[in-house]
């Protein structure tokens, strides 16, 4: 069978499209169901023949052996297909799960930064794991139990009616109300279960709050009160748990008793017919066997229904994501032009508004190719947003950015981002080797490039101390880097691409002044022939820039060279005084 790993289509996502490739499995499931159920309903017929034969004294050794051979043969067929009745739909469900998960992930890789900011990672995780698991289970169990239950009910009713109409009516007459009552109680139980679930999360929220507020609790000596309240919550929990247990166990005892009732009703009513000679003893046993056989499928109906219900809810949550279109779209008619545009950046009347709040306004700026622009300003003034617009992590509300005279919205995304080396304020590294992380933007990892990039970011010496040098794993299963090391890795990663445009967003904040100076001097030649935008709070770094801009409250309030700005009253010169004071304090 041809495996498809993705089924993304432009239209709204539909679950049925995930089934289409597996129609054969669905038919197979039903076929296996028909055979197994058929065989299972046939086995009691052989028993009946034997018992009737024994009762009438007509059974011979030869006949007995023949019946037993039938029994074995039909039994073997039943067992064989019974396995596939389970295997086919479950495997099918895992295939759907696999494809669906791939699709959701693939879709997520196209989503923009704003999406990831608005959606909590935990919530997306839940959709990719538990929601998809619920969908898978409802598909697997739905196909398996659903087809089996329907087949058993139809086929068993048919066979029972054939054997004896009166007894069949008794069974149907008894089971119909029983299943209805079962449903009713189950609904009550589900309500209790939901209340229990809410209470359970209340208990866990209470623990969570207690643990995260532990300092406050210790400080005010609240332990006793917290313990008492927790005790109270848990006492209620027992009550709620017991209510669910009481309903659930009642359900099962009630159903078991119901089947006992069915057995004896058939025995008594059927027994009267046996006495009257209208029915054989064997047929009676046959009915008892059917009764037992129908027990589980009948109970499974409600279970399957609730499973399907949950599956539907989860699918809607998945669909919600699949139907979200990424805001940053590529202009699809764009040809991938071979020639790279010149790396000059032109900001024209740029405005950025998010959720009704204006973050950037009236930004007009020219950065000639090969020049270095320093950006500074108070926290939250929009510096990072400005740099992220260049890499199209978001699109401006108004105005435009041009690179080499071309609006960046007219450049293919991969080409635009391929030109840029970006090191973010809080660098994200991956739990892979250091080499993998530094060479993250390279198609082929070249050792000399890696060590060159690491050397410039002053990381080379640190690497020498790592157990496996560049092959050292980062993160939980390897070394944990310090904040400064993370930033320097991120710088290496950005320059390893040898980009035309280098964006460094406050990347030296966690690095001490000496290292900073060392890195800056090594970065100088790298920045020489590239267009560089760097955000910094340090005068010592900013002075390297050809031009410096100060952004306050989303607007450019000062621009000029270090020597110019230092003489003007304003943010820049105040920053300068403050940092000189700090330096004096350090030097003490």
């Amino acid at each position: 069978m041809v495996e498809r790993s993705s089924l993304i289509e432009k239209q709204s996502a539909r679950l049925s499209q995930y089934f289409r490739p597996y129609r054969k499995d669905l038919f197979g499931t039903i076929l296996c169901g028909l055979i197994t159920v058929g065989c299972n309903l046939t086995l009691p017929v052989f028993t009946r023949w034997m018992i009737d034969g024994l009762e009438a004294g007509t059974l011979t050794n030869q006949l007995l052996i023949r019946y037993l051979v039938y029994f074995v043969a039909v039994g073997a067929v039943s067992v064989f297909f019974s396995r596939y009745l389970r295997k086919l739909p479950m495997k099918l469900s895992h295939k759907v799960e696999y494809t669906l998960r791939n699709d959701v992930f693939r879709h997520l890789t196209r989503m923009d930064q704003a999406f990831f900011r608005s959606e909590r990672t935990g919530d997306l995780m839940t959709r990719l794991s538990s929601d998809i698991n619920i969908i898978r289970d409802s598909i697997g169990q739905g196909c398996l139990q659903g087809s089996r239950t329907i087949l058993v009910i139809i086929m068993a009713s048919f066979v029972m009616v054939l054997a004896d109409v009166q007894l069949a009516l008794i069974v149907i007459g008894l089971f119909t109300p029983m299943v209805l009552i079962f449903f009713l109680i189950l609904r009550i139980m589900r309500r209790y279960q939901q209340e229990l679930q809410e209470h359970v999360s209340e208990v866990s929220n209470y623990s969570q709050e207690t643990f995260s507020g532990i300092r406050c609790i210790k400080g005010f000596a609240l332990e006793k009160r917290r313990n008492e309240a927790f005790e109270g919550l848990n006492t209620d929990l027992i009550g709620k748990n017991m209510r669910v247990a009481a309903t659930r166990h009642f359900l099962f005892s009630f159903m078991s008793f119901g089947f006992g009732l069915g057995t004896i009703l058939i025995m008594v009513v059927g027994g009267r017919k046996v006495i009257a000679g209208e029915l054989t003893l064997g047929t009676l046993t046959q009915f008892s066997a059917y009764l037992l056989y129908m027990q589980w499928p009948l109970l499974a109906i409600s279970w399957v229904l609730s499973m399907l219900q949950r599956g539907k809810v989860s699918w809607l949550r998945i669909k919600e994501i699949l139907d979200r279109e990424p805001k940053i779209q590529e202009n699809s008619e764009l040809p991938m032009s071979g020639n790279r545009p010149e790396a000059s950046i032109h900001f024209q009347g740029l405005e950025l508004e998010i959720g009704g709040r204006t973050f950037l306004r009236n930004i007009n700026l020219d950065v000639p190719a090969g020049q270095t622009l320093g950006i500074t300003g108070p926290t939250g003034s929009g510096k990072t947003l400005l740099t992220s617009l260049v890499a199209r992590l978001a699109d401006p509300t108004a105005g435009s950015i041009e690179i080499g005279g071309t609006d960046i919205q007219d450049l293919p995304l991969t080409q635009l981002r391929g030109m840029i080396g970006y090191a973010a304020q809080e660098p994200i590294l991956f739990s892979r080797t250091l080499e993998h992380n530094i060479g993250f933007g390279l198609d082929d990892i070249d050792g000399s490039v890696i060590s060159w990039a690491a050397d410039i970011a002053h990381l080379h010496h640190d690497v020498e101390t790592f157990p496996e040098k560049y092959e050292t794993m980062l993160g939980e299963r390897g070394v944990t880097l310090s904040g400064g090391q993370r930033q320097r890795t991120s710088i290496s990663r950005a320059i390893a691409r040898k980009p035309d445009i280098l964006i460094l967003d406050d990347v030296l904040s966690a690095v001490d002044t000496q290292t900073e100076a060392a890195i800056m001097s090594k970065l100088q030649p790298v920045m020489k022939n590239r267009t560089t935008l760097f955000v910094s709070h340090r005068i010592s770094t900013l002075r390297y820039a050809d031009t410096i801009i100060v952004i306050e409250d989303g607007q450019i309030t000062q621009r000029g060279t270090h020597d110019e700005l230092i003489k003007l009253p304003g943010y820049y010169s105040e920053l300068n005084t403050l940092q000189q004071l700090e330096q004096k304090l350090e030097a003490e």
Partner: protein
Amino acid sequence: MNKGRRFLSYAKPYSGWLALAFSLIMFTTLSINFLPVLLQRITDDVLRNDASPLDERLDQLLHLGLIYISIAAVGYVVRYLQTLLTAWIGQKIIYDLRLAVFRKVLRLHQGYFDKTAIGTLMSRVTSDIERLQHFVTEGVVGSIADLFMIIGIMGYMVWFSPRLSISIFATLPFLFVLMYFVNVKLRNANRDIRDRQSNLNALIQEDLTGMTTIQLFNRETSAIEDFEGRNKHLRSAYYDEVKWFSLYFPTMESGQIVAQLITLAIGGTLIMAHSDLLTLGTLIAFLAYLKGFFQPLGSLSDKVGSFQVAMASIERVFDLLDTKEEINDRDDVATPEGIAGTIAFNDVSFAYIEDNWVIKNLSFEVEPGQVLAVVGATGAGKSTIINLIGRFYDVQQGSVTIDGTDIKNFAKHDLRTRLGYVFQDPFIFTGSVAENISLSTPGVERADIIRAAHTVNAHTFIEAMPDGYDTVMNERGAGLSLGQKQLLVMARALAQDPELLFVLDEATASVDTATEILIQDALAKLMSNRTSIVIAHRLSTIRNADRILVMRHGELVDQGTHDELMANDGYYRQLYELLLHSPS
């Protein structure tokens, strides 16, 4: 297995109830499994007894039917009661255990919380305990019930017809071994699934947080490839599970079929030979027993293996319960009536991590009623002073005394009820505003709450909330601004009327000027006439302090009043100028 026994000790208080539960299990086993005997009686004595008169046979049929129904009713009612009782016992045991864990966590020292993620603690009180609850009610009691059921049925079968019982004795060992084998395979597959799932989840988590980076470096394709690889890996573990799971029921079915086959063969031969050893009714009843026999067998073999999983949870829970509590009360604790309020540090040295001294040979004294401000650059060890007085940590060298008594001689609880805190990160509890201020301390009335709120300028905004003081706040005080939260926790500290007050007045951005003025005013009122130590960043608090300690790299470099220190023209003067120039 020691931990297992220890776990069982939690059941001890309920041993009487457990004994009752087991006798009920015994009763149901005997009564419910008696039912097929009646089927045999009906078959042999009524249906096949052509000799007796028709009326008598019909009467007897009805009679036996009624007995059957009565026994079934009693049996299932008792079984229902038994399951309820078992569930209740399980709930009680888990209740005790959960409270024990919770209490333990609250007794642990602050250093433990620095090292342990809250998520880890949460999974102890939630998922581990839930797993144990399942284990107690379903696992332990369930498997005993299953065992009783199997033994009960076997007893009846042997009593009924030793010969036909060959069928189960011939299949049982094979079947049990087979089922056990399948269960082991299934559990292995499940472990693989769990591992691979968490492997995949780790990748998802990382990629989702780093998606922007992936996009910036044009790595979408390789991220997708990695993802699909791990997803496929997970799928193959699932396929493995399906392989074994799809064998589970068919194995049971084949056992059932073989046992029926043997029964029919033996029964058929015996009856054909007109042997007195077996009646047709017995054969029919026996077939009924066989149907009921395999279900508990399957579930038992399943539970036997699940003990392993529960043991892991037991282990983790007891490890937590056994964690050493590093800050303990002495046996002979002092309980002073009131505290005058002289706090003294005598040559104190302290390190959070061994040999990494945060405070070195620190000595100072605060007089009752004095306000002491501590200033210094970040990392100078200022807030550690507060941590030490509240015994969040114990000093390694030297001593901290209150009114001349080493604080290690106070009971932690007594000590802390006399201390009040205003932390830099205000913690708001779920509950009403009033509860957040009073902390449900006995004796703090509504009037006190309102007075406290008034004093710290919180009354106005509280009154403006939908239900005033009864407004219920959700987690972490969402909806309140940071400044409002700070005022609220000040009202809280004031309402507790502590004898010693500690304020962490770290510089907080994003508080507007109007609120800032309210906060400064509130701080001043809070500390007036109260022994207070304030880790100060606001110029106003520093200037208003009676005395200022200047800290640097864990050492005391200078102390005195603001004017004295300024006159010294030393480190303090520079710090002060820096604060003057700091934005906001």
